[in-house]
C-alpha cells in the first residue's frame, strides 16, 4: 500500500473552553493549560505540515480563541501556505480581535451552534448569555466578510430546531452548514441516554436535509452526518484511518482521529519528539488501521471496504470492545441488530446529561 500525504490537519490548540457541551469531542482526560504547545512549536508544526502535503488547517480546541497567541498562529499558518480555518463557538471573540484575524489572513470561520434560541443554546453549552454573544459575533463576521460555515450538532433535545438552524445559516450569509448528528465518543458516551435521537427524528432529519438541499441549491451547501445508530452503513470515519487527515492534541500528541486515545494499546508520538513526517508515515498508531489489510470478516471480503473502510475504529472499540471489529452500526456486523435495539432504548432514556468538565 502506498501511503498518501495528509491533506488536512486539525490543531487542537487548547482544551480550555468556556462552554461545556455534553457531546464535546475532546477526550474525557483533558489536556491541562500548562501542557499546551507554545507558539513557536505550533508555528514549526504548521511548516512541517505544509512540507508534508497538508493544505487545510483547522484551528480548533476546546475554544481556540482562548489562546492569546491566536493571531500570531494564524499569521504563521498563512506564511506556511495553509488554508486556515477557525473552528469556534464565538465566545471570547471581540470585534477588534476579528479584525486582527482578518488582517492576519484567516481564510474561513466555522461557528458552532448549540441551539437556535438562547434557552436551548445556553442550556446545552452550559453558558448563560452565550447565544447572545454568538449572535454578535455572527454579525461581525458578516460585516467583515469572512466566509462562514455554521456547524450544528444534532441530538434528541435540539433536533426539532434543524429547520431554524438552516434558516439562520441563510440569514447570516453562511455558504455552508454542517449538520452532524451527535457521535458517541468520550463525553457524549456518558450522556447517550439524553442525547440519542429517536429513529423517527433521524428520518425526519434526513427529510429536512433533502428538502433544504434541493430548495437552497446554489445558496447554501449542506453537509450532513446522519445518525449512524439508526442507519444501515457506517460513516467513513476520517476519510479512512491515516489516509487524509491527522489531529494534534494541545500537548503535542499526534492522533489519527480525535477519539483515538480511547483505543487501548495504541502508542502515539509527540511532535516534540519526532518529525511530523516520520509520525505520519511510520507511526505505529497511524499504521494500525491504515488501508484494508487489518480487516477481519465481514469487512475483509466486503465490496464496500474501500467506501467506508469498515467504519469507525473508536466506535467498534466502544461498542463491542474490539477496535478492529466491523463498526456495529453496519448492517453486516453480527452486533447490528442488538445495537439498533439498544439505540431505541437509549432514545427512550432520561434527558439529564453530563456537562463536559473544564480543562485545568
Amino acid at each position: 500500500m502506498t501511503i498518501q500525504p495528509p491533506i488536512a490537519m486539525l490543531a487542537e490548540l487548547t482544551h480550555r473552553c468556556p462552554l461545556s457541551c455534553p457531546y464535546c469531542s475532546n477526550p474525557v482526560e483533558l489536556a491541562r493549560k500548562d501542557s499546551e504547545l507554545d507558539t513557536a512549536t505550533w508555528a514549526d508544526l504548521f511548516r512541517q505540515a505544509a512540507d508534508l502535503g497538508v493544505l487545510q488547517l483547522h484551528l480548533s480546541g476546546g475554544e481556540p480563541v482562548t489562546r492569546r497567541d491566536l493571531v500570531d498562529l494564524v499569521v504563521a499558518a498563512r506564511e506556511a501556505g495553509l488554508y486556515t480555518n477557525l473552528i469556534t463557538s464565538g465566545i471570547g471573540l471581540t470585534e477588534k480581535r476579528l479584525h486582527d484575524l482578518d488582517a492576519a489572513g484567516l481564510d474561513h470561520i466555522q461557528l458552532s451552534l448549540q441551539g437556535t434560541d438562547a434557552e436551548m443554546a445556553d442550556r446545552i453549552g452550559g453558558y448563560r448569555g452565550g447565544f447572545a454573544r454568538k449572535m454578535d459575533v455572527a454579525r461581525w463576521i458578516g460585516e467583515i466578510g469572512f466566509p462562514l460555515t455554521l456547524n450544528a450538532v444534532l441530538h434528541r433535545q435540539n433536533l426539532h430546531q434543524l429547520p431554524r438552524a438552516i434558516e439562520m445559516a441563510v440569514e447570516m450569509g453562511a455558504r455552508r452548514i454542517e449538520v452532524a448528528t451527535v457521535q458517541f465518543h468520550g463525553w457524549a458516551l456518558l450522556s447517550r441516554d439524553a442525547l440519542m435521537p429517536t429513529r423517527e427524528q433521524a428520518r425526519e432529519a434526513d427529510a429536512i436535509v433533502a428538502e433544504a438541499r434541493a430548495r437552497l441549491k446554489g445558496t447554501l451547501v449542506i453537509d450532513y452526518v446522519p445518525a449512524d445508530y439508526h442507519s444501515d452503513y457506517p460513516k467513513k470515519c476520517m476519510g479512512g484511518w491515516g489516509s487524509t487527515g491527522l489531529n494534534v492534541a494541545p500537548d503535542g500528541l499526534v492522533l489519527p482521529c480525535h477519539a483515538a486515545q480511547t483505543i487501548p494499546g495504541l502508542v502515539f508520538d509527540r511532535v516534540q519528539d519526532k518529525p511530523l513526517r516520520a509520525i505520519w508515515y511510520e507511526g505505529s498508531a497511524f499504521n494500525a488501521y491504515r488501508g484494508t489489510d487489518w480487516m477481519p470478516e465481514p469487512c475483509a471480503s466486503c465490496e464496500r471496504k474501500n467506501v467506508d473502510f469498515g467504519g469507525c475504529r473508536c466506535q467498534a472499540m466502544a461498542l463491542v470492545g474490539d477496535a478492529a471489529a466491523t463498526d456495529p452500526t453496519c448492517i453486516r456486523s453480527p452486533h447490528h441488530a442488538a445495537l439498533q435495539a439498544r439505540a431505541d432504548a437509549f432514545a427512550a432514556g432520561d434527558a439529564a446529561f453530563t456537562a463536559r468538565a473544564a480543562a485545568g
Partner: protein
Amino acid sequence: MIGADDIPVIPRGVRMQFDRVRERWVLLAPERTVALDEIGVAILSEIDGQRSFGQITEGLAAKYAAPPEEIAADSRGFLGALIDRRFLEVRQ
C-alpha cells in the same frame, strides 16, 4: 446556468494554489480541496472579476484554436459545478 454576459467572480475564501507536494494546481475552499486539470486551471486563471463569461471563453477559444461553442459548453459545466458548491459567484 451561467450566461455569456455574467461575470464570474472567485469569492473570498476560495483560492487557487500550486500544491508543491503533489505537483498540481488545486482550488482551496472551506473544508474542500479540488484538484484541477489543465483546462480547469486555464479557465480559472482567466477569471478576474471584470470580464464576462463570454469574453473569457472567446479568449480561450482563440488561445487554444478551439471552437468557441465547445469551450463555452465545457466551461459552463465546470463553472456550474463550482457555483453549486458556492466556490464561485456570478455578477450580472
